């Protein structure tokens, strides 16, 4: 060994002066934390005092009491005789219902509009630009109220619009044909999901083998077997029936079919159109961020147009698209709280009613915040995982 490890200089002794950066750092931290603690303690003592004056007991015990709050639009069983806890769960399910479907639809429409903006057809590109510009520059709440008013102005159930057989649009909302799902149907759906997962691994294995010897192995027989034949077999064995129920007008309302209440439908349209305008811009800039040379080189290799888009351009564009897309998904979820303005009973609306009924302001708002923080965290974790998966592997 010719080189000796360099000796670390001896640590300077502490000086009790603000000119010593370590002492200054400690001083500022203690000061700021002290102020923060003092403010919180002051507010908390006021809250404790005010609550005792108003005879409101703190804590979440009220969740076990009878809610007495009607919720019209719920996917899980609920009556006003149920507890506040159950009402909150209904609210959370309603929030997730509008957020998840909204995210899927906004992504599809936003991507189409984003691609349309880059179209060589001048009219299509212009119309897409107008769509983006108008929707982005109006407050979401205004759009939501606008859609809701339009929804209320629709004809009554008896004069409902019928664009296609079995689909009705009236002031009762949108009514669609549905398939009643029994246990046997659920087993079949489960079989499709299981088949897709197994097929995913089979395909990965086939590609790995192709990497070894260069021989292409067709994947479609496996797809046919796992995703079509297997569920069909399960469906036949379990005796599932797939008859479609068409909604029927009886008296003043519809019976059968799937009903999207006007509040839900207005909220969904407003969220989807508003967010799709932002997603369109993200998709457009993502595609434009891929250098032209990439698609030109792929064409020079003789690859087909669809193949170039799917395997060359989109994977590179996705890297630019995913991070801003994540924040749009978070925005859509947070914006779904505007439901309270049209009376769709999501978590915020349920908490607001609870707050008015019980006076438990702190607990209700804390519950709203906890629910949204959890959802935000969930979306962030999923998108970060997806982003890491598609990230460029650099040497």
């Amino acid at each position, binding site marked *: 060994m010719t080189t000796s490890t360099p000796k670390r200089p001896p640590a300077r002794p502490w000086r009790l002066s603000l000119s010593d950066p370590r002492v200054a*750092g400690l001083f*500022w931290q203690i000061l700021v934390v002290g102020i923060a603690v003092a403010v919180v303690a002051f507010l908390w003592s006021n809250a404790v005092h*005010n609550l005792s004056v108003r005879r409101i007991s703190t804590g979440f015990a009220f969740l076990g009491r009878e809610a007495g709050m009607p919720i019209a639009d719920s996917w899980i069983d609920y009556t006003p005789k149920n507890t506040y806890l159950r009402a909150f769960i209904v609210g959370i399910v309603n929030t997730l219902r509008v957020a998840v479907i909204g995210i899927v639809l906004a992504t599809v429409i936003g991507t189409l509009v984003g691609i349309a903006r880059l179209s*060589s057809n001048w009219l299509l590109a212009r119309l897409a630009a107008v769509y983006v510009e108008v929707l982005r520059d109006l407050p979401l709440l*205004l759009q939501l*109220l*606008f859609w809701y008013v339009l929804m209320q102005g629709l004809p009554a159930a008896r004069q409902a619009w019928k664009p296609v057989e079995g689909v009705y649009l009236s002031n009762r909302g949108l009514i669609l044909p549905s398939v009643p799902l029994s246990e046997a149907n659920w087993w079949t759906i489960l079989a499709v999901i299981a088949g897709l997962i197994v097929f995913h691994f089979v395909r990965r294995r086939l590609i790995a083998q192709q990497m070894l010897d260069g021989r292409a192995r067709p994947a479609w027989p496996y797809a046919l077997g796992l995703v079509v034949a297997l569920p069909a077999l399960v469906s036949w064995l379990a005796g599932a029936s797939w008859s479609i129920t068409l909604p029927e007008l009886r008296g003043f309302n519809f019976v059968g079919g799937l009903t999207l209440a006007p509040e839900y439908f207005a909220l969904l349209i407003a969220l989807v159109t508003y967010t799709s305008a932002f997603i369109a811009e993200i998709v457009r800039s993502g595609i434009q961020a891929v250098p032209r040379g990439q698609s030109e080189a792929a064409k020079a290799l003789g690859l087909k147009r669809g193949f170039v888009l799917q395997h060359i351009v989109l994977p590179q564009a996705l890297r630019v698209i995913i991070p801003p897309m994540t924040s749009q998904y978070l925005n859509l979820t947070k914006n779904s709280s505007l439901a309270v303005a049209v009376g769709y009973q999501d978590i915020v609306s349920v908490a607001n009613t609870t707050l008015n009924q019980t006076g438990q302001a702190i607990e209700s708002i804390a519950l709203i*915040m906890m629910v949204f923080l959890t959802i935000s965290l969930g979306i962030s974790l999923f998108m970060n995982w997806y982003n890491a998966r598609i990230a460029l592997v650099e040497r």
Partner: protein
Amino acid sequence: MSSVAHLPQDPLPIGPRPAPRALGGHFTAWLRANLFASIPSSIMTLLLLFVLGKACIAFWQWGIANAVWIVSGNDTSACRALRGAGACWAVVPEKYRFILFGTYPFDEQWRPALAVVIFIALFAVSSRRSFWRKELFLLWAAALAVIGCLMWGGFLGLSFVTQDRWGGLPVTLILATFGLAFGFPLGILVALGRRSKLPAIRSLCVLYVELIRGVPLISLLFMASVMFPLFMPDGVNIDKLLRAQIAFILYAGAYLAEVVRGGLQAVPRGQYEAADALGLSYWEKHALIVLPQAIRHVIPPLVNTFIAFFKDTSLVLIIGIFDLLTTAKTAIVDPAWQSFSVEVYVFVGVIYFMFCFAMSRYSRSLEAQRTHN
């Protein structure tokens, strides 16, 4: 160089070839290239023209041909007779004063109108690159003070008007602009705190930013309207508008902190090190060297954030503060005008759109200048 001089001159220089002649005239060439380039493109064009034509005709019939433009007093029978076949624009001349200025005393409404003009002038001045100096902060402080004096009054013969009578466009502009004006310094402090080496300060700032950004604005507004009074000592009563304004400032602070942090990260390390080498203190380093560069860098995203605030102010409708959208919604509570909400929403929509469109155009022109440079 010399070898080039020896080369023989080209005896017959070939002139540039004429540009390929387009089929048909200039206009038909454009049509062919942009609308009818291929068969699918042509089908798409025809389909869109058909849909667009239908929509235009429908809008023409509803909004112009069949519309009622003026009625006398509250007699809306002419509008009702249309049964939705035409718009009732008469609601706009009837209600515009209430929509724009809310319940502000009718004879004094020149004051909020002047305040709106000052706001627009302030935005116009701030958009000029030549005004991006330290004096701009003083100008903002002065303009906001003048606006406050105008709205409140109580001096020089102006009657005093309490905040609960303010309404309409000035309230929307006040919430957004004061939110920006106070949220910006807060955002700078939090952004610096988030990049600080001191763990306690850093985690406090991270907690603040992530908490605010993780929850919907409505929950913050609910906090301001129902939870805030619980946290105040006895006898302290803060006005509802002011509470909403505080919620907006806290909300703005968190989002602006992230914008400013982006700018701080864009300042090269050498700038920080050079400032340290000169022996500047932490605050001198940031005030004189780092922040002026960082803020210039984030002006386009700052404008975009402001557009978002401007739209988000409409959420105060839910806690019952009279901003532009709430006054619009209240204007049609009047039984005579109840069924003409679409017309009123179109009216306020146009106002919101003009502000946001102007700002987003401006932000894009800034971006374009930057990429051009």
